[in-house]
């Protein structure tokens, strides 16, 4: 395997810390940039993300032109808080209301393409406890400074915040190491050079995102990576080391569900690409067991695996962006 890509297309966030240079280049190239935060009950972290990005990358340096929150129907104060701090806030179900609505992160990202107008879209998970504006400018940096780069993805150390106000130094990225990396090694060894294929922080040009399908749930990162790789090759992708990201810990069962969705997305992709031929349809239920009152009871998580088509195929989108 040629690992030139790793050397050539891997960056550290400090390489882009001259934000005024990024702003100059952005203006020179006549680009606009939108930041989208997909949310579902993120009242503990959303305000900080909005405040820091607004303060540093909208007020101090005019790098970001649009800041939108697309919410999956939070039952806490996420939308209220986000509005209070000046983000444009949408309920996912209110966007493109004439088409059937689904619930999930991928759905929010896909719909963000419709409501934003910018050339570059940055997607950031809304549960980052140690948010810093480098999470945005470092992802945007390669896209602005290098003409060949169309999609950039974050990687980092992932300490976990436990419930006791202490930080555990390791333990993140279990689904990456146990699920997606072995799969990539088996089917797309070149893509193993991507340190964290499942990271929820990435940025890319509209012209890329609008031409790929979006699974509505957790599988969106997997499918996005495989689709961009298949369509444009590895050289349009960059990865940026963001140093450290503190996130909420998830239990093994929740990770199991996430792994299930990712495996399903992966299987669908490799079949679609003709790499394998599955002789029978795979199931869409993840079955876990709970021990309740001396009995094992199944806990069934059903995932339909709905996938949104490339948004460029949607007539409302074509109309909004004057695409013939």
């Amino acid at each position: 395997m040629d690992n030139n890509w790793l050397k050539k297309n891997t960056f550290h966030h400090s390489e882009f810390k001259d934000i005024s240079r990024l702003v100059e280049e952005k203006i020179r190239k006549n680009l606009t940039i939108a930041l989208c935060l997909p949310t579902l009950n993120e009242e503990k972290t959303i305000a900080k993300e909005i405040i820091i990005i607004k303060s540093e990358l909208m007020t101090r340096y005019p790098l970001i032109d649009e800041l939108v929150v697309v919410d999956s129907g939070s039952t806490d104060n996420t939308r209220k808080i986000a509005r209070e701090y000046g983000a444009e806030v949408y309920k996912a179900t209110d966007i493109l209301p004439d088409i059937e609505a689904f619930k999930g992160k991928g759905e929010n990202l896909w719909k963000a393409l419709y409501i934003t107008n910018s050339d570059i879209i940055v997607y950031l998970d809304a549960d980052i406890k140690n948010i810093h504006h480098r999470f945005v400018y470092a992802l945007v940096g390669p896209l602005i400074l290098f003409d060949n780069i169309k999609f950039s993805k974050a990687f980092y150390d992932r300490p976990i915040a436990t419930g006791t106000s202490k930080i555990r130094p390791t333990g993140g990225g279990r689904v990456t190491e146990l699920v997606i990396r072995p799969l990539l090694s088996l089917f797309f060894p070149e893509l193993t050079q991507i340190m964290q294929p499942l990271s929820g922080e990435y940025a890319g040009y509209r012209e890329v995102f609008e031409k790929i399908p979006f699974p509505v749930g957790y599988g969106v990162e997997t499918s996005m990576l495989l689709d961009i790789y298949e369509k444009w090759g590895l050289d349009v992708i960059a990865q940026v080391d963001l140093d450290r990201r503190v996130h909420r810990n998830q239990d093994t069962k929740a990770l199991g569900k996430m792994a299930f969705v990712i495996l399903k997305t992966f299987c669908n992709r490799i079949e679609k690409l003709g790499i394998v031929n599955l002789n029978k349809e795979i199931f869409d239920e993840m079955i876990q067991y709970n021990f309740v009152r001396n009995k094992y009871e199944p806990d069934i998580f059903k995932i339909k695996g709905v996938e949104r088509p490339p948004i460029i195929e949607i007539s409302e989108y074509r109309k909004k962006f004057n695409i013939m």
Partner: protein
Amino acid sequence: METYLDKLPSFVDAIKSIKETIIANIVFIGQVPAPTFNEKRRTSVFMDRLAEAQVDECSTDGYRNPIAIIRGTSQTKPPIFVVAHLDTPFDADIDHNFTIKENSIKGPGILDNSLGAGVLASLPEIFRKLNLCFESDIVLAGVIQSMGKGNLRGIRHLLKTWATPIRGAVCVEGVDLGRINYYSYGMIRGEIDCNIPAAKEWEHQFKPNAILILNEVINQILQLRLPQRPRSRVIIGKISGGFKHGTIAYDAKLCFEIQSDSDKMVKAIHNNIKDIVDGIGHESGVVLKIRTISNLRASKLKYDHPLVKSALAIMEKLDIQPINDPSESELSIFLSNNIPALTLGITNGENYHLKNASMEIEAMFKGIAQLIGVIMAIDSGICDG
């Protein structure tokens, strides 16, 4: 005086309009752990924020206190100091990530004193927003090694080595809005350690208990007759020791503070406590040691000092209820160097020294307006002559 007093209420909304910048500074600085003696990383972030705000000068002094200067229009007026201590009482391994809600920021150290440091770092942008420039240079100093065993070393060093006169100073603390400190008690902060050599199994049941020894020390301290005038008191602040439930404690520590508005009285009480410690140590046959970890001289501005009067007028204009208390902080060092100074609190908060300390956002804008008012008052010459 009237001119700037009248402007103050309108400052509140103008300051609020850049709330993202102020909150971002509080978060960036406050999320970097800074236990006393380990403030290096926070110092560096604090300086980065001031450099980003394009102050005229930004560097550290010989003791590594970070200092920024906003140049004034006058060549002759002495500088005005605005200081906030950078250290907090929390260890580095505690999760320092703050949570922001609609009207609160929560996290360890937010009130003492990440909020103060964040506001200090925001002042250059706030001055720009309010279109303010001053005759005096404004020196923004984040001082290190302030709390506990730090014994205010940062500010002591800064003032000892500052070559020119200082026109006046404001110390910025997180809470409470309305706090106005203009005098400091004389103070000695000390620790009493009791150590008993570890026992062999057979003597386990008969050896003295370090906790009970300290209990006797406390009893005797409480029997001291302290005068009403000069006002004096001994605070038993912290006690720790022992190993487990079923083992006689072989070590214990007592932390105390003597406060009085007379330095002589502080010394006298300290000597009394020393006698108690020597006596009990001698009679019990244990190692009982007393040591001083910090001390301060009593110092004060008079109530009718123009700085105090102006600050109270500013508070009244902003509808802030003043809360008057002594403060053993950077203020003492300014006052004992004959520099007119005040300590002001910025907002309201709860759970002061707990991990879940929380500050109120909305009240902060008034607290900052009050701080700006006091800086303007000093710049108008109220402390001169």
